[in-house]
């Protein structure tokens, strides 16, 4: 006999989700590098979002900066000096963050979407489906990134969308393989058998048992793929394949290189974007690794 | 202190007041809480208990194989020398040559990418560094034959052997350096009844031939009754009953032993037909032990006094002791 009213089914699901999130967050908090990465990430994202408040976008265009001294070092022109066209480096760094983050995230989402669908489908259905999808994956894997990116950019033309497309198309095989491997392990679990014995359809198995257990891997992997995408964008922009009308850190590096910042010893032009890239990559990597640790025990259903 | 009327020869192993506590962030976990027993040369002792009773921790403690940060106190006298205070060099020399262990879940303990002959040979070479290759191979062959495996199988990889054969290899591995004491932690749990019988017969044979002392750890009380001379039953980190094996199994003095024995129905005995008996609940969490006798929440004979009594091993018959206030030797 119980005096407490039984919680309804929906409330139980909600309670469960809340508990899982709560304990996940507590676990994450204990991971110091993860917290450092998170703080860094939040700061950078805030900076990118608050760009209009922090720096005047007009300062990105050379026509507006004719009055500024060119090649002014940080002592002469706060806070980070100017480039060869008199544009404030700080403004470019702040606005460049937007592009780098945007491209990085969008390309990653694209790659993860394709990769997840391919991975889960191949792993779950097996047979011919799996064979065909895995051959496709391998085909994309062996194609060298840079030549493909260059060719695609040349064909499609330099623009933000195309960069996102190029990076997405070349990155999806990695998560696809990881996810497929995870799905294969999950398929063998006894609780999948039990669900089948209860009469579950393949769809039910996939959505109720396999997907939730793979989602952790997907999230962690996403976080770790973003820095790769950002670096890819940097590389493409540096090679001149980026969107010429938008400031990005990679573009800054390209322009500084071409304008002769090295010979000018104008370190304030190429160091800040480099440091920016470094910090973003570091932040995502730290968070991703911490996430992996938090989510990993659950991936393996080990709780004791 | 053992009440058994042992002859004047000093016991091979004397364990006194052994405590094993795992240090964990969330708090200390006392796995073994004061265990005492003796083992004579060539004697077999059965240690019965279920998950969480501390038997595997006890086994690990005897060889000092527990993870760093585990606190082990008490004395473990091996031929008069305390294993717990040995210097690392002496400990390494003693491990495997005097005391060896066959682990639980041992089927996965063999290195899958090394031939079994090489794995056994490694144990030999580590302890007798001067031995030449030829002598090592010869010894490996001898050991394999000893455990009933043809010597030529030394070239095989673990996956080429059956479960029973792998268990024999592990026993052979444990005997590589001719120890005087073998600790077998659930060596036959994962094996079929027939294979288990084969391995038990092997152990019995070896024990008699080599004068090996054996501590046999398992939850299967009926196996212990058949294989060991004496049995000690563990619950919640302590020994709750000990005595000659057949007596302990046939006429248990402690209610827990009674429940454990009841889980092994005697085929042919009508008393066991259609009446499965078992205990409710679980073994207690070592971090939250009940007051008084740790078994009282699940005990069918618990009384008021059990919740506060300080139970110890009291005499329950000739050479028998049990930690229950109902035994004849308990203070009233």
């Amino acid at each position: 006999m119980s005096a407490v009213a039984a919680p309804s089914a929906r409330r139980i699901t909600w309670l469960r989700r809340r508990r899982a999130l709560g304990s996940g967050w507590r676990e994450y908090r204990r991971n110091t590098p993860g917290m450092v990465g998170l703080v860094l990430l939040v700061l950078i994202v805030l900076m990118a979002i608050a760009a209009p408040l922090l720096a005047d976008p007009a300062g990105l265009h050379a026509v507006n900066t004719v009055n500024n001294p060119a090649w002014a070092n940080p002592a002469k022109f706060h806070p980070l000096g100017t480039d060869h066209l008199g544009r404030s480096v700080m403004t470019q760094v702040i606005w460049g963050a937007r592009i780098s983050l945007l491209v990085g995230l969008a390309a990653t989402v694209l790659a993860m979407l394709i990769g997840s669908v391919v991975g889960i489908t191949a792993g779950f259905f097996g047979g011919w489906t799996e064979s065909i999808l895995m051959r496709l994956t391998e085909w994309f894997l062996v194609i060298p990134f840079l030549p493909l990116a260059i060719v695609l950019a040349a064909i499609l033309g330099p623009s933000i969308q195309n960069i996102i497309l190029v990076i997405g198309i070349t990155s999806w095989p990695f998560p696809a393989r990881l996810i497929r491997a995870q799905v294969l392990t999950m398929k063998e679990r006894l609780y999948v058998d039990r669900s089948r014995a209860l009469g579950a359809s393949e769809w039910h198995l996939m959505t109720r048992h396999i997907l939730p257990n793979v989602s952790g891997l997907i999230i962690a992997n996403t976080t770790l793929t973003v820095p790769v995408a950002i670096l890819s964008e940097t590389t493409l922009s540096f090679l001149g394949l980026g969107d010429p009308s938008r400031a990005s850190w990679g573009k800054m590096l390209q322009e500084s290189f071409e304008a002769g910042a090295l010979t000018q010893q104008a370190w304030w032009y190429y160091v800040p974007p480099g440091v920016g890239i470094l910090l973003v990559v570091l932040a995502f990597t730290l968070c991703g690794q911490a996430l992996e640790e938090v989510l990993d025990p659950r991936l393996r259903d080990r709780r004791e | 202190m053992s009440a058994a009327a042992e002859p004047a020869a000093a016991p091979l192993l004397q364990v006194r007041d052994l405590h094993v506590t795992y240090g964990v962030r969330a708090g200390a976990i006392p796995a073994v809480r004061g265990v005492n027993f003796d083992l004579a040369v060539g004697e077999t002792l059965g240690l019965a208990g279920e998950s969480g009773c501390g038997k595997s921790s006890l086994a690990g403690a005897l060889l000092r194989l527990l993870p760093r940060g585990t606190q082990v106190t008490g004395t473990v006298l091996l031929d008069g020398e305390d294993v717990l205070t040995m210097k690392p060099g002496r400990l390494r020399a003693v491990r495997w040559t005097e005391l060896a262990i066959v682990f639980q879940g041992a089927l996965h303990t063999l290195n899958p990418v090394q031939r079994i002959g090489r794995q056994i040979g490694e144990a030999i070479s580590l302890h007798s560094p001067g031995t030449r290759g030829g002598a090592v191979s010869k010894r490996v062959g001898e050991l394999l034959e000893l455990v009933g495996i043809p010597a030529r199988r030394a070239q095989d990889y673990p996956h080429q052997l059956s479960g029973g054969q792998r268990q024999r290899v592990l026993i052979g591995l444990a005997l590589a350096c001719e120890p005087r004491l073998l600790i077998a932690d659930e060596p036959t749990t994962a094996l079929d009844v027939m294979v288990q019988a084969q391995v038990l017969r092997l152990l019995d044979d070896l024990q008699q031939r080599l004068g090996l002392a054996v501590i046999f750890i398992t939850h299967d009380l009926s196996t212990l009754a058949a294989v060991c001379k004496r049995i000690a039953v563990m619950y919640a980190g302590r020994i709750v009953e000990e005595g000659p094996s057949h007596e302990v199994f046939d006429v248990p003095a402690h209610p827990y032993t009674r429940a454990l024995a009841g889980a092994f129905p005697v085929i042919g005995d009508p008393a066991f037909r259609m009446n499965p008996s078992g205990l409710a609940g679980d073994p207690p969490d070592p971090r939250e032990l009940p007051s008084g006798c740790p078994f009282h929440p699940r005990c069918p004979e618990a009384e008021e006094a059990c919740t506060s009594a300080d139970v110890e091993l009291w005499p329950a018959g000739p050479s028998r002791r049990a930690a229950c206030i109902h035994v004849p030797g308990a203070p009233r």
Partner: protein
Amino acid sequence: MKDAPLLEVSDVHVEFRGRHGVARAVDGVDLTMRSGEIVALVGESGCGKTTLARTIVGLQTPVSGEVRLRGSALPRSRKALREYRRSVQMVFQDPTGALNARQTIYEAVAEGVRIQRVPGNEEELVAQALSRAGLRPPERFFARYPYEISGGQRQRVIIAGAMALNPSLLVADEPVSSLDASVRGEILALMLRLVRETDIGILVVTHDLGLAWNVADRVAVMYLGRIVEQGPTEELLTHAHHPYTRALLSVVPEIADVEPQILAGEAPDPTRIPAGCRFHPRCPLVASGEAARLGIEERCRGEDLALAPVPGSNQVVACHAVADAPVPA
């Protein structure tokens, strides 16, 4: 007690193709069960008992033969299979692995109810199932996770999940072997109670003869894909006829006054089933010369055989020595 058999397995064969050839895991098995009875399917690893259990539940497809539940054959189509599963449910060997660690107990039990669209209030059904499986008060367990309860309780949850569908047959694959010994009795007592209360039939797959003695009405002994002996528990376990059963019984530690017959080696794998009587390479009768003395050794080596009734008893055995035994007066 209904007259028609609950379960009829007729000449079922299940094969697995592997690198080493075709493994005939179940090689011609006939088995019948009635409602309200508990049958123990006993054998060592590799004998095919788990494969047979999974086939009956529909998790494995037989290569030939039929499985009939109350007269209707095990269906192949997905939709019909789901219907079938309302009547046959399974209890698994590893209750921890059989529960999704991310699901609460409520969700685990409700899963079957939802999939099968069992009519009625879902919460009531779940509470009833948990209660019936001995987890009381059921509400206390709703929001808990598998890792927060004991092994015995997890097995009860699995049983509750199965019973929530009101099956007529329960197939229990080693239901207590991964549980602590002292807790096994509780789960077995639960199974006995379920049979008494609902007239369900339970097929228990186990390697433990003691368990069979404890709870089974009938015992079927399997070796290398075939049933080699079958009969009422009390008769079979006290007067076994097949040499394999006798050897198994002789090594059970509880029986102290019988000379243990420890068979040499292990059972050959199902890709290389011996000719003739599949047990003959390890049979003590052949090894000791008794078979030769009885004049049946050639048949043992060359003639395969089926289960035949033992005269004067309710048992059936597949052994040349028994088929030849004189009929008792």
